[in-house]
């Protein structure tokens, strides 16, 4: 028992020492002067969480400081985002992994206490994941046009991972643009939604690429189109929605994006340090491998450009939510 206590004591001393050392080296570069908190506005598990933990792990090396991931789930991502918008003492060391929930949440949750565009500093878009329009392997539809034609005649059901998810909103956007009959069938997460699609209970879905990629490869699902602006290098034979060229589908360019944001009071110094560190992280082989596994492209926009992108997204989903009647 004594040995055990001694070992614990030693370990505690060691980690305390390591902590002071990391703080002292960090203070030479001004920012960060403290541990950095990376807030994940969702519960553990899921793409946002896994991505945040991967990025935090790599950021630690680049920033030479502890990056602590903190899950603050609630009301889509709006509880954590509202808290970030309030600022406070540690606002200069708090960043948040934002995702489509940021812009869609602004469209569907009433009485938000923050402005999704003006109240935040947009640091860097980290990755973009395209959505894929998929049908079961035994589906009679081999192209988007065939599907649209059929959906004008008869009612189709599309599965998604929950009201307000990017998968749901993509389906609603498709329905609006093509003026077809489609029923939204919600599930609790993509894991629960997939069997309904594989089993043929619903006719189509607009799932995130990583969720369905292996099923497309194994032939259980058929990809009709990807929603990104360019064809995905993982599915080079699958056209983009924009390529379809009919039924207003040229306006159907959307990705599940993930990026880091902070409170407006985030200092210039911190912003620069973060951008530099993120640029390094995004070059790292571990990061690129991870992005490849997700079927994702590294993010393209940062700073003002990122903010502009968010503003457009908010406007777009606002219109879709209005039309679909998803607003309280």
């Amino acid at each position: 028992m004594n040995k055990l206590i001694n070992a614990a004591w030693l370990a505690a001393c060691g980690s305390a020492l390591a902590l002071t050392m990391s703080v002292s080296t960090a203070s030479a570069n001004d920012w960060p002067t403290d541990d950095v908190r990376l807030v994940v506005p969702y519960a553990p598990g899921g793409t946002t969480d896994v991505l945040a933990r991967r990025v935090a792990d790599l950021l630690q090396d680049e920033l030479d400081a502890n990056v602590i991931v903190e899950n603050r789930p609630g009301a889509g991502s709006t509880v954590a985002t509202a808290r970030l918008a309030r600022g406070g003492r540690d606002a200069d060391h708090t960043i948040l992994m934002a995702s489509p929930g940021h812009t869609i949440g602004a469209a569907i949750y009433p009485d938000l206490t923050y402005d999704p565009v003006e109240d935040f500093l947009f640091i860097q878009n980290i990755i973009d994941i395209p959505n894929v329009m998929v049908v079961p392997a035994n589906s009679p539809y081999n192209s988007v046009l065939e599907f649209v034609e059929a959906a004008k005649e008869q009612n189709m059901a599309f599965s998604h991972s929950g009201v307000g998810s990017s998968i749901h909103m993509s389906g609603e956007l498709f329905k609006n643009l093509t003026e077809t009959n489609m029923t939204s069938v919600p599930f609790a997460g993509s894991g629960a939604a997939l069997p309904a699609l594989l089993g043929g209970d619903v006719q189509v879905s607009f799932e995130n690429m990583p969720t369905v990629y292996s099923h497309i490869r194994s032939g259980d699902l058929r990809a009709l189109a990807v929603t990104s602006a360019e064809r995905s290098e993982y599915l080079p034979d699958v056209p983009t929605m924009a390529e379809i060229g009919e039924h207003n589908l040229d306006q159907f360019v959307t990705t599940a994006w993930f990026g880091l944001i902070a409170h407006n009071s985030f200092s210039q110094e911190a912003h620069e340090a973060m951008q530099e560190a993120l640029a390094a992280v995004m070059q790292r082989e571990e990061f690129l491998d991870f992005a490849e596994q997700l079927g994702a492209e590294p993010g393209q926009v940062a700073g003002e450009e990122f903010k502009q992108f968010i503003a457009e997204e908010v406007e777009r989903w606002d219109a879709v939510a209005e039309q679909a009647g998803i607003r309280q």
Partner: protein
Amino acid sequence: MEIFSEVLHIFLSLDNFLAIAVGVVIGVVVGSIPGLTATMAVALALPFTFSMQPVAAILLLVGIYKGGMYGGSITAILIRTPGSPANACTLLDGYPMAQQGHAKKALKMSLYSSCIADFISNIALIFFAAYLAKLALSFGAPEFFWLICFSLTIIISLASGSMIKGLLAALMGILLSMVGLDVVYGSQRLTFGNYNLMDTISFIPLLIGLFALPEIMEFYRKKALPHLKTKASGVGVTLAEMKRSMKSIVRGSLIGVIIGAIPGTGATAAAFISYSDARRRSPNKANFGKGEVEGVAAAEAGNNGVAGATMIPLLSLGIPGDVITAIILGAFMVHGLSPGPIMFQENLPLIYALFIGIMFSSVLLLVVGNMAIKYFSVIADIPKSILFPIVLMFCVYGAYAVNNDTFDIWLMLAFGVLGYIFNRAAIPAAPFLIGFILGPMFEDNLRRSLLIGSNDLSIFVRGPITWFFIALTAGSILLAIYRYVMAQRMARRAADTSQEAS
């Protein structure tokens, strides 16, 4: 033969054994602390696996998962606070046993039953994954709907004492489960504009409040409990008890396997279904809920039976059935593997190495669990006046830790008061819990079926699985009515004969 040596080459490394051992230890410890769930531990451990070999990485996470599933039963038995939601059912008999001085017996039974169920679940994963995955795919919303209907009938058997009170509690549970955003339209229900309630009421604060707090309040109301002369922890499980519970353990494990293979039902429901099944069949029916060792066995078999089986849809279909397997899926992806049919073609040796590791984890669970019992059962001997303030502190911390939100502490206190009222009014809390867990599944699948079937009701009788569960549901209700009528008739006859006699 070549594949065999390749599998051994991948598996036989110290890293793998260490990963499983460390995982199981972390799981048991974290699982036993209320508010710290296995889910959280798996998420926190994920970054540490980035730099590990893929097999060791996955085994570490699987070890935590399995350890956590068992660990939660320790505090459920000792202080009436389930470490994880899946262990809520274990306290129904586990805590009364601890109070009667049989803490060690309950803990041991929970461990043995967990390990056996885990083993059976692993066997199912290794040999029947393909069949069970097919079954999972044929489970659409209407099939789910009837499965939940059947599961709801277990309220009848859990409503010990008064049927009216049991149903009342269940309805209250269902009502409270409706708080939050509507799943289809996204509109707010019963949230009173409060953001904290939009994602429904958090389960863990509810659980801690409902079970742990009333016990503490009761203690301070009475001020003193009789001192036990003997050591409270007592002795282990006898061979006869083990033999008696074996059937329930095996049945519970199989229930766990089937529930685990179907994405989205979860270990908590499996534990309750297994428990009520055991109760229905046991000759010691009357003792269930009062400290029946078979009850502990059935509950733990149910939830641990799920642990291996949730890997079935994950590995064979690439579909995570719960949050933990979703995180494990993330770990696979970080290592460049995508679970699903393709992985069985491309990475077969790796999958076999994983299987060996998973089997090994059952054995390790037995070893680590036995050690844990040795130290934890001391808790049963601590005087309540010292223990309860500490428990209260853990309760507050546990409620807060789930979402890092003080609102959850208030929620827990409110449920504490509700639990206390339940205790005083002899309203059973278990049906409340069942209502709260199954209520949303009932509603979601009903509405989902109607959406899929374009409001055509024939979707509810679309195939053999729906018929099977309709028959089970009807049978279960009819049996309950028959028993009720028979009991009434017996009572009347007894009254008549006693009148004649006088």
